[in-house]
């Protein structure tokens, strides 16, 4: 089986290339192989679309400071500032 034929049916390899391509560069050959694969594989096309969306969502999740986000309780904060003041007074 030729290399080209092999990738054509290999979704594991195709999804690997989809991931790599989103974050970095893939070779020209890999690019062609992936395109050929995606032309004939609707499942990997869905995968690619979802994977991109997931990346966006993850980025958004970590960037945003949404209201209702995790907060420290006041007593912890009070103690923490007191601890800092003690350290400051040491010097």
């Amino acid at each position, binding site marked *: 089986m030729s290399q080209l034929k092999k990738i054509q*049916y290999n*979704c594991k390899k195709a999804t690997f290339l989809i991931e790599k391509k989103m974050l970095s560069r893939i070779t020209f050959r890999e690019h062609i192989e992936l395109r050929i694969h995606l032309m004939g594989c609707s*499942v990997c096309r869905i995968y690619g679309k979802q994977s991109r969306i997931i990346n966006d969502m993850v*980025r958004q999740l970590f960037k945003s400071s949404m209201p209702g986000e995790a907060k420290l309780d006041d007593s912890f904060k009070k103690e923490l500032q007191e601890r800092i003041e003690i350290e400051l007074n040491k010097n």
Partner: protein
Amino acid sequence: MSAESNQLDPHTWVKSHADYLYAYTIKRISDEEQAKDLVQETFLAALEKVDRFEGKSSERTWLTAILKNKIIDVYRKKSSGLRKDVQAAEHEQEDFFEHDDGHWRSAHAPQTFGIEDVDHLVNKEFNSILQMCLQKLPALWMAVFTMKHMDDADTTLICSELKVTPSNFWVIIHRTKLNLRACLQRNWE
């Protein structure tokens, strides 16, 4: 104004930055106690470095940089050792593809499940599922994934910090997404 804001005032640190730093940490390390400890350690470490603050960045940026290094330390510690969690996660995706030709097995083949059309960026429910799925990842995968996606860290840096080879890095990126996507599909429907 900009020169003014680039000064340190430890007397207001907790009030001004503690919640921000905690939220920053909890997204990257989903352990409340550990996150609290890290915030505290960050302030205490910062106090010792006050003299070396050059005013080039804002107080918050400076504190966040200190925290970031502490988080990477935690990642490094968590992901060293036996890595049993990695084995379990790898096992989970063993059946995703046919072993001989790498084709999706039908039971695991991605299907559209709704993230394609909802306005997921503001969807609270989706965010909580996403967070739950992220928490299930093995420590090393979570570390690699977080550093790459959330902090845009350089691949070479991630590899050296977490002691993974570049080829293993891409394997981890791929495997992480496979499990994450499957987890989202399972839980969203």
